[in-house]
């Protein structure tokens, strides 16, 4: 009973906050709402028995990425965005596409059947902690994705310097 209640509370708050984030005309408000949303997502991870992910959600998303977003928002001249009423002229078309996608998703999700569950039961994770469980899988089975991730991060460094540095030193 309690977990369901908690889940529906989080799910509702996350949905409402996401809608608010994309509809605010002041981007700083959007970011603050997003912060609250990230905390709720972290709580959801916690109830899914994924403590490590919950911590990452707070450290990386709420801690680092939101700061990045905030800087980007402050880089832009806000006043123009505040005046612009509608970005896209053909929004009814987008609305129809969105509604269609939603219908499609609901139609599909209804017949969703859960695949086989794995070895990592609640008891097992409680026994060895979630961080260790993630570590074992990440550093034995998912080595290739792990190493490629470092290259993706490297591209982020290069991209930031190439695109945003005032003067590129040659």
């Amino acid at each position, binding site marked *: 009973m*309690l*977990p*369901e209640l908690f*889940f529906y509370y989080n799910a509702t708050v996350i949905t409402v906050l996401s809608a608010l984030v994309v509809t605010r005309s002041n981007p700083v408000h959007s970011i603050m709402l997003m912060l609250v949303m990230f*905390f709720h997502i972290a709580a959801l991870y*916690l*109830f*899914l*028995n994924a*403590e*490590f992910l919950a911590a990452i959600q707070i*450290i*990386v998303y709420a*801690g*680092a*990425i939101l*700061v*990045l977003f905030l*800087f*980007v928002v*402050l*880089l*832009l*001249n*806000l006043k123009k965005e505040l005046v612009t009423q509608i970005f896209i002229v053909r929004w009814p078309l987008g609305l129809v596409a969105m509604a269609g996608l939603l219908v499609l998703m609901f139609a599909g999700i209804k017949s969703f059947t859960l*695949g*086989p*569950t*794995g070895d*990592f*039961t*609640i008891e097992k*994770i409680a026994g060895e902690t979630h*961080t*260790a*469980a*993630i*570590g*074992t*899988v*990440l*550093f*034995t*089975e998912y080595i290739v994705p*792990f*190493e490629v*991730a*470092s*290259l993706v*991060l*490297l591209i*982020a*460094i290069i991209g*930031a*310097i190439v695109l*945003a*540095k*005032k003067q*590129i*030193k040659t």
Partner: protein
Amino acid sequence: MRIITGMPGQYIPSDYLPILIFMMIATAFGLGTLVVCSIFRPRRTYAEKLTPYESGNPPIGEPRMRFSVKFYIIAMLFVVFDVEVVFLYPWAVVFDKIGLFAYVEMMLFIFILLVGYIYAWKKDAFTWD
């Protein structure tokens, strides 16, 4: 191959209850203070009182000014190395179980980002002007 964890409805992270209580108290205290103050505080406003506080000087220009793009590069580098550090946590936990293999893996990971660090350094990404 699989890591499907427990579904909601089976698991209650009771260890984290203090954090939940703490956050509820913090929110209640913050909101409560504002509400109580707005009820009891005297309202005597005048023009000077409503201007933004700028260390006692008369405010100049818009409070919201455009940030330099330099902040963006710093923030981006911060995010990248933050993510790198995050990967070190599970690595440290399972290191003794996996052994040399994990060591080599992580050194490769760090080496690739070290190249990025050297690159950023030499490109003056850390100097401020």
